[in-house]
């Protein structure tokens, strides 16, 4: 079970969180024209990479904040966590 540092609450067990996928995906702006390809990339296409991955988790059974977690998908090592409003660097 992973140990995730919630930037708001501190180290917590994985079972307090739910997973939210790739954190680098940006939702296209509302009301803007967008090609089928770009829309598909936003809705469906993900890299499913092996290695370092910025991803979203929600501290569901805690502060309910969505957070950004930099995790290695192969080793589960977590390098960094950020609040929702902090930019990935």
């Amino acid at each position, binding site marked *: *079970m*992973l*140990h995730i540092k919630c930037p708001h609450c501190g180290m917590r*067990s994985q079972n307090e969180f*739910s997973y*939210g996928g790739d954190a680098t995906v940006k*939702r*296209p702006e*509302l*009301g803007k024209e*967008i090609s*089928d390809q770009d*829309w598909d990339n*936003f*809705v*469906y296409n993900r890299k499913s990479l092996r290695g370092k991955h910025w991803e*979203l988790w*929600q501290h*569901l059974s805690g502060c*309910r*904040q*969505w957070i950004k977690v930099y995790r290695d998908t192969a*080793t*589960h090592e*977590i390098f960094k966590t950020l609040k*929702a*409003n902090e930019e990935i660097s």
Partner: protein
Amino acid sequence: MTQSFRLESGGLINRDKKISFKFNSKNYFGYEGDTLASALIANGVHLIGRSFKYHRPRGFFGAGVDEPYAIVQLYRNGETEPNVKATEQELFEGLEAKSVNCWPSVNFDVGAINNFLKIFLPAGFYYKTFMWPKSFWYKVYEPFIRKAAGLGTASIKHDKERYEHKYEYCDLLITGSGPSGLASAYSAAKNGAKVILAEDKSRFGGTLLTSEVNIGNQSGKEWADSIISELKEMPNVTVKNRSQVFGYYDHNMLVMSERLSDHLPKTKKFHPKQRLWYIRAKEVLISSGSIERPIVFGNNDTPGVMLSSAAKEYMKVYGVLVGKKPLVFTNNDSGYETAIEFKKNGINPIILDTRKEPQSEIIEEAKNMNIKIKNSHVVVAAQGYKKVKSADIAKISDNKEELGSIENIECDCICVSGFWTPTIHLASQSGNKTKFNGDIDAFVPGISKQNEKTLGAANGIYTLEETLKDSFEKGNLTSKKITNKENKFSFPNVVEKKSTVHDKFWCVPLPKGKNYKRFLDFQNDVAVSDIEIALKEGYRSIEHVKRYTTLGMATDQGKTSNLNGLQLVSKIENKVVPAVGHTTFRPPYTPVSIGAIVGREVGKHSKPTRKSPMHLWHEKNNAVFVDAGVWLRPRYYKRGEENLFEASKREAKNVRTNVGVCDVTTLGKIDIKGPDAAELLNRVYTNAWLKLPVGKARYGVMLREDGIVMDDGTTTRISENHYHMTTTTAQAANVLSHLEYYLQLVWPELNVNVVSSTEQWAGAAIAGPKSRNLLQKLFPNSDVSNEGLPFMGYMEADLFGIKARIFRISFSGELAYEVNVESDNGYFMWEKIIEFGEEFGIQPYGTEALSTLRIEMGHVAGSELDGRTIPYDNSLEGLLSKKKDFIGKRSLSRKAFAAQDRQKIVGVVPLDKKTSIPEGSHLVKDSNAPLPNPKLGYISASCWSVEHDNPFSLAILKDGKNMIGKKLFVMSPLKNKVIPVEIVSSHYVDPKGERVRS
């Protein structure tokens, strides 16, 4: 009955306390401190079971967790447990155990015929033989194999025992209380670190209990006792015996099972039987020691052949002799220690040493004690069926390939030592890439991946002095990093006998003309010949060889067999062992009770039960409940002998003719506040929300980004910047997360707060033509007329002194209202509704009637909004705003979603107006078409229309728009039904929606 194999004195057992027990229905006794194994051996019982495949006689092989043979069915306090290791089960008064895998008895076992047919049961036998004819597998082969092979029988009774879970955090977790565990725990504890020391046996000390050593002028055991009692006194240390750390998971989380009551005749009141510990440790010191490995020779599975360390442990810990004419067969000095112990107890052992001229302190001592030693000698085969009677021995050439002439010598046990294998399971589970150490012919931990270090024998360090020094230091350094404290400590003087190098010998060649079975895996009956076949047939990867032959796949997980298996593969393949590699170590290290894994989450406790504030009323009024997620909801209220169908029909009909009341507390409710609340709703819902006036409700549909309908519900504008959103019961949690996602990550500029208020409000839906009359009685001071409170209107009102919210919304399609009060007042509200509703013929209705009402109205619910349908499919396309963008809108223009003949919701009525249509049935054009019959759609929900008094269903049908009036067939192969039906509008009742506005 006398214990013919019990020594006159010695051992750590309490001879003052006799304990009686039963094995295979026969009475025996042992002493407090015995294991079932030691007590049986003391009583001269050497035959305990039959092997898995060949049903060969099985005795004892080890004295602890590595035991492959001595598996019993245990009976304790009216309960039974399968596959208990006799070597681990402590004796308690009244213990009963039985042999497994034998019929009719352990002494006469019919299955043993397999032993004589073993030519037919080589590796891969099942895969090859039972494949044909295919139809025979389920009916003939599998039941037969399952009956013949297999171990104990699991109880099918409810387990009355209690199992607990515990979460713990510590600085250092130390797994094992042998010399390395004690030393490291001691120095870490002295530095002030929070330490957990776990020992799987009942006694602390590990090998210190059985080895002839001296630490600081104390015997090994005395030293261990003094360290343990000091540790127990320290507030920063938790010392646990009977506790096995069996799994090493991510981020330094380890799981340990503590067996609190398995050694007692009965679990104490309010005590758990076992406790599972989830331990998050900053650092882990693995001090799990090593396990002696066998040497492979002919008939090496005969009862009486066992590990030499086990023989020594039985003498030193339990005061029990495993035999009176022992043969010690060894390739290293450990066998000598066992022989010396025999000699000290007045028994004359013979040592066969594979080495030519070994010399060391220990060997010298054995010689001085006049122990007979035969160098360059091996056991070729054990003789005897149910017990070793003699051994064929021979001299072996220097290249270890040629056997000299065979001599038969009498013996009653053969104690084998093929050197030591570090227990690296936990290190490997943690992700440590293990490496092969040629000096000890075994794998040891390599570079750590997580915060773990391996100490002592588990790390391949086999001398006490080095182990203690290394462990004191690692305990000190590791804890110092955490506590910033260092306690000066003087290293004790260690006295131990020096040993010399072992012989890299692990398997005795077969003598000419003999075809003895030489076993590698004793529990799964995997012999040298099986591995040879697997390799001959082309299996190369060690993982494949393992699965094909089942080597190391038994309940002991190959603790004594893996390395010898690897040696064999590497020899045949002409590779070095590290090139072959080892199979993956996976948790659990040793079997764990399912009960311990499940913990308290059984039966009613497996999930929380949510009840509405009116639950008690429902109970008192004969409600029959149904699970709705974790909620309990009344399904119907039983009157007299009514069944579900009759009751729900009555309730639904009463709503259509009079008035009914339904508990809708479970609906998800979200309180939304903030200046941008309307903007959020406008983006989340498909329809327009910016102009909703205060005091009005609106129905809305929300999509996922992929265009699929996520949920529907009504949202009401309570005041300028305050909205009350309702969701379906099932989606409540997901919708809240969904809103939080967009507010926190996508549109953080929106100034809105959302919070769940599901539990804060109790809700009652009052539905039916007479509902307004009832409302007037309940709220005499409010104007609830059609003008005062129109359809989709909202007002706050006073319910006999209680603040209430009234929403004029309808799920049933009738004139209806939903009244919400604070949860604590829910019961009061409900009673008032029933009391004042009496004159209008009110009846409570449950979820079944609720479904009937919504189905015949064509209102969609969870069975249509099933994560596969878009708004059009549910005839909700009228709610799609063309003027604004919203979540998921762009997806709706995808080709498939815009197709002209897309599926759409329709109504379905059987032509005979009688036959009920099973939910999930398929709609087809031709009921006689050849299979697979093209499916045009499926039945999503069925009911008995109370309005029309005939069956009615909703279906999602391809090109549904153009199918109204067509005749199709409903097919349910599952229920063997074919029903001719007519497709009608999904709005079967009041298609113009006049009633809700009346």
